[in-house]
């Protein structure tokens, strides 16, 4: 929006620049250019926001009320798409898969990230190196290449089962091809991308003044007690931040499931993530109207859960003062 507003004012500043005489004081002009410059630099980004993000968002809001096959013209059908969700067993299946994934993988990932952050916080030599190494999975974890590698490692005859057979397990399962294990494997993949929250935890741990620990140990508190009574409360704003961020992230998981299951959400729909189902409806089944409705429903879910998160935060997040 602001970019469209910029345009006339930008023109004006230019028209005035060359020939103006005494009326517009140089000071005024400088004031204008100083105010405008940042916005002009931001204009490409605003243009992107407008056309690449906001435009499609508005379009999908409209499409969610239509029957739209991608090929033909959209046809207004009111709330039918939203009603249809409630009779759609695969919609429920995708919700179930996604919720299990979020509820299990986010806490696990955060716990793991915190654990490693605390180890790294003890002033190891070469900390920067470790930090980078541990951060690596976060950078590449969501990539197609890693998902393909993952599929190989966890295949029936993959690396993992090779090791398991070597140490004596007779019949290790197909970790990504058996519906009982496939989702678990993807959860582990997500936990493995603990780098981003870990770095944030690490920064948070640095913020905790050592005097609290000194005082606590003078009072006879052991390491465990210190963790629960000092570290956790003082770190709670950071934990909260990570929790909100990773929850939202986890709801949007797509790449891993898409690659590992070959886009089907299989075996037997056991990895049918919400976003994957949405994608299937929209691009595979010429059902873009319904897919748009699904996207907006996901926004409601994520928004609602984030609101709950913020509400619950009042009871456990400690802001120090």
């Amino acid at each position: 929006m602001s970019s469209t507003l910029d345009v006339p004012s930008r023109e004006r500043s230019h028209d005035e620049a060359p020939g103006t005489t005494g009326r517009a004081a140089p000071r005024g002009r400088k004031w204008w250019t100083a105010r405008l410059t940042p916005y002009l630099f931001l204009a490409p980004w605003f243009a992107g926001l407008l056309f690449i993000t906001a435009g499609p968002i508005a379009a999908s809001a409209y499409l969610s009320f239509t029957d739209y096959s991608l090929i033909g013209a959209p046809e207004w059908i009111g709330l039918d798409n939203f009603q249809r969700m409630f009779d759609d067993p695969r919609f429920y299946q995708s919700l179930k898969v996604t919720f299990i994934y979020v509820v299990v993988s986010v806490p696990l990932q955060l716990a793991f990230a915190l654990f490693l952050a605390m180890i790294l916080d003890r002033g190891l030599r070469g900390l920067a190196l470790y930090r980078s190494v541990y951060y690596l999975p976060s950078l590449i974890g969501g990539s197609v290449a890693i998902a393909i590698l993952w599929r190989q490692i966890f295949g029936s005859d993959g690396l993992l089962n090779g090791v398991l057979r070597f140490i004596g397990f007779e019949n290790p399962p197909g970790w990504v091809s058996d519906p009982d294990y496939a989702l678990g494997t993807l959860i582990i993949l997500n936990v493995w991308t603990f780098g981003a929250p870990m770095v944030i935890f690490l920064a948070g741990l640095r913020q905790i003044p050592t005097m609290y620990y000194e005082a606590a140990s003078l009072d006879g508190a052991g390491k465990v007690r210190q963790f629960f009574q000092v570290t956790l409360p003082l770190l709670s704003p950071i934990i909260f931040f990570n929790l909100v961020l990773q929850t939202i992230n986890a709801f949007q998981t797509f790449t891993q499931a898409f690659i590992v299951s070959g886009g089907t959400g299989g075996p037997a729909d056991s990895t049918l993530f919400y976003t994957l189902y949405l994608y299937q409806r929209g691009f595979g089944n010429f059902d873009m109207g319904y897919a748009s409705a699904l996207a907006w429903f996901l926004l409601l879910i994520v928004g609602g859960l984030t609101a709950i998160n913020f509400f619950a935060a009042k009871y456990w997040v400690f802001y120090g003062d």
Partner: protein
Amino acid sequence: MHTNRSNGARTPWPTRIGVTGGVLGLLLTTAACGGDDGGAAADGGTTRDDGPVTMRMSWWGSDTRHAATQELIDLYESQNEGVTIEGDFTGFADYWDRLATSTAGGDAPCLMQQDTRYVREYADRGALLDLTPYIEDGTIDTSDLDENVAETGAVEDATYAIPTGVNAFSVVIDPAAYEAAGVPVPDGSSWTWEEMVDTAAQVTQATGGEVYGMQAMGLNGGDTNFEVYAREQGEALFDENGEIGFTTETLADWWAIEKRASETGAEPPPATTVEVFNGGVDQALVATGNGASGFWWTNELPALTAGAGSELEFRQFPTEEGDGETGMYLKPAMFWAISSDCESPQEAAMLLDWLINSEDAVNIIKADRGLPVNTELRDQIAPTLDAPGQAAVAFVEEITPGLQDPPALPPQGAGEVQSILQRYTEQILFDQVSVEDAAEQFMSEVESAIA
């Protein structure tokens, strides 16, 4: 951008760069969003007489096909001055996402490879050009095309797609695997479904699970596989009116065969089955030497043989009665179709005609898009094919008299059937649902998909 040098208060450079950048950014994104309006010109549209013509052509396939098609494009361009063709290719699954989005954006490729399952999806929504005028004025010559399939791209009075070639869905066996297991090699003219599963189970048993007797039918070409079974029973996947053409009993019976194959060990354990299927042709059990049989298209034999290390053979489908009266049919392997958005349809039609009717083209592509639909050229290239290619020609010739007519184009939504079938097959194999319940649920899901 004129600035007065003498004016001390000239616009500072950063601002000017900012302005230019901002405007440029705006312009670029607007342009990107604009796309083309896809206004198809009347008649032949723009042709090479109006100046250079550029068309996009899209296909899915393997690396071999990409290379061969690129060769076709180069040759056509060298023979037709003023025509430029941009190739656009992916694998099968991604192809449809891409085609749908580019069609939605008014930017569909002029000439596109199509599949039986999707022709009506596009044609019924006006995305494909009716080729009838080009056939009538001789631009596209259909006189030498295989009669069995020539009309398969027609919907009522219009022809939206021309088949590229033919193939048949059949059973591919590795005779050596049966022999090594001490099991008689099946005879295609008389075997029954029961025999197929029993012999397969014997192979698995005799080899201690080194070699599996067969590969899952519900995954591998699942919808075609079931179509053949339904046709054997006098039913069909879809009838001429585009309605469901089979009964739940037939589907349940078919799945019961699959279930028995899984339980008797004729097929690998379900998890392995899923992985083998995801691996495609390259990972097929018969291609890796881990299986005695599987269901494949005749044009896939070269790819299967490449990995097998032993000679593979075709067999007809088994039947209930063992009378050899299968539901097999000659299928248009794939189609060429022209987008209704194409700005130079006349040129696209000429290219299409060249691809199917010119000796040059057929000599390059050989049997990769199915045995060439032009029967004269098919006979001509047959001797030049490699051994598996020749085996495919011989097999198709041998079985053609007993084949059923190819089915009519399935209705909109037919593209979903395979994935629905795959999902229920997986659930059956993993014991999550009974064959009867799966058949009921499959029925209602397909009904709503084609509604």
